[in-house]
């Protein structure tokens, strides 16, 4: 289904969604950051950015969440299931790369058994994506098989067609229902819309990456490229597809929670055994793990690249490590 949405209807749309019981999440500007977060009305929404600083991941896989609660009374333990984590919401104005990260991550969170914290949120949240009308030099979605107006993962896709108007395309049944629910804010689309979509330069050829990775687990490039890495977790935490986590208990004498927290492969402690032995003892090994996981292991396991080309990791890297540069380097090496 195709429709047209005028910017001046954002107000009615958000108000309408709230009335229908949706929690509304949209990009909001605060100082230097633009983050996806809950908005109460459309005036808070900011759309003048390339990409939000936070990814869509945290709405499905929060940085910290309870996976079990319990009470302790001497040697008696009572367990309680967390409730209320899946809230009916609409995420409005996320980018196609972020939206695509969801079907990619569905694969691991449903591998043989399903993580209900992910799955139930997936069911509760509707994604209304806005195609990118601009990009920056960190973007490389086109190199990983996506496009600034890709539809995968979105329920509804909005594409700018003039300063004030968006073409509305429904992608899933969920999206269709949402548009129907809000029918009054949409109008009929023009015949031949002029879609304003950013161009993103293709930086490397994905087909050449994996064969090289298959053969080059041992290579100097891992250490050479990563020697400036400071071993923080910024890249993995801002990444929409990095899904590693830690499970810890936090408690008092009488009650506690088991908590699932983001964790990252770039931390020294990530793989360290209790004995002190560490299978990935150097930053080069950890950097290799990140690239291998995204462009080889995940591809072999789930037939999908674990990278959507959003470029966030490169934007935030304290030492200016650039992932697409690494992949370009691999492409060059592969061509040798």
């Amino acid at each position, binding site marked *: 289904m195709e429709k047209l949405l005028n910017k001046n209807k954002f107000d009615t749309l958000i108000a309408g969604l709230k009335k229908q019981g949706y929690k509304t999440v949209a990009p909001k500007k605060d100082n230097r950051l633009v983050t996806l977060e809950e908005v109460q009305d459309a005036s808070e929404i900011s759309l003048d950015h390339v990409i939000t*600083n936070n990814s869509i991941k945290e709405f499905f896989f929060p940085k910290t969440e309870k996976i079990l609660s319990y009470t302790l009374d001497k040697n008696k333990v009572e367990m309680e299931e967390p409730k209320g984590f899946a809230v009916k919401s609409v995420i409005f104005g996320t980018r196609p790369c972020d939206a695509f990260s969801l079907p990619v991550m569905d694969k691991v969170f449903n591998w043989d058994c399903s993580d209900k914290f992910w799955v139930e949120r997936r069911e509760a949240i509707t994604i209304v994506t806005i195609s990118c009308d601009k990009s920056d030099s960190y973007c490389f979605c086109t190199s990983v098989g996506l496009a600034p107006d890709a539809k995968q993962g979105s329920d509804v896709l909005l594409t700018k067609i003039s300063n004030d108007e968006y073409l509305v395309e429904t992608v899933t049944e969920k999206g269709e229902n949402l548009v129907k629910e809000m029918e009054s804010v949409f109008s009929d689309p023009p015949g031949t819309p002029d879609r304003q979509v950013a161009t993103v330069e293709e930086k490397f050829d994905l087909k050449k990456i994996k064969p090289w990775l298959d053969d080059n687990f041992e290579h100097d490039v891992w250490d050479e490229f990563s*020697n*400036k890495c400071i071993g923080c977790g910024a890249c993995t*935490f801002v990444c929409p597809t990095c899904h590693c986590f830690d499970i810890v208990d936090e408690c008092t004498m009488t009650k506690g929670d088991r908590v699932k927290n983001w964790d990252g492969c770039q*931390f020294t402690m990530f793989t360290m055994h209790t004995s002190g032995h560490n299978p990935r003892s150097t930053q080069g090994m950890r950097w290799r793990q990140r690239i291998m996981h995204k462009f080889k292991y995940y591809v072999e396991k789930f037939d999908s690249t674990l990278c959507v080309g959003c470029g966030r990791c*490169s934007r*935030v890297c304290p030492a*200016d490590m650039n992932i697409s540069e690494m992949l370009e380097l691999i492409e060059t090496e592969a061509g040798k």
Partner: protein
Amino acid sequence: MIEELRKKAEELLKNDTVKVVFGYGEGSVPERTRPVFITKPEDVNKLTWNKYCVYNLTTYLKRQETRKLGKPAIIVKGCDARTIIVLLKECQIKREDVYILGVTCDGVGDPLATKCESCDVHTPRIYDDLVGEKKENKEVPFEERYAELDEYEKLGEKEKWEFWQKQFSKCIKCYACSNMCPLCFCDRCIVEKNQPQWIDSSAHARGNLSWNVTRAYHLAGRCINCEECQRVCPVDIPLNLLNKKLAKEAEKNFDYRPGYSVDDELAMSTYKEEDSQEFFK
């Protein structure tokens, strides 16, 4: 100046004074530079110097990956050189194990970094060799150096709490702040220790407050306000305000500023009988 730096680096590598030069190279975009580690004289052209050279490269003195490259020459601005003095004082490096290639500096960042606004170390206070024209290190008055804090110190208790809670709620516990900090050199950070778990590793309100307060406190009387923690924070928490507040208190109470002289005693490992105790009952 770039040419002079390159020439110097080439010389040091050629005559085997050092095995590697820690310097600045071109970044992925023109507004960024990145750390480079030059091990071959023919690579010195990768070195650059411009207003985007904000990094405090001394952090690489603590990392095993860069330590194993051999004895370094390290390019330091005046502020970074203060870190070197602290590292020397804290016995993290030996003077003879590092060749200090000082550069004089008029300030970095675009817009100019806050740290540069009240800079009193345009010329490094320690170096083996200096590149660039020597500049006067004019004393900046106490009030001016900590002026940034005024608007926050003025806030009421509740406003302060709300301001910091809002800031800390953004924290994702990526530890870029501590990993980037040249003075956070513990092999195992307190947050990685779990017997007992002093600081919750979760990025929730409680864990974020204890983490951020502890990180800052561990730098009390040590932090030279290079602002790297704040620069690298992916969620833009003004971490340096905390560091600066501590620096201000250390200076006010102990008349001590870290990284100005290798002869000073470290503020937190000494005491004076006449130290202030006005808040003691």
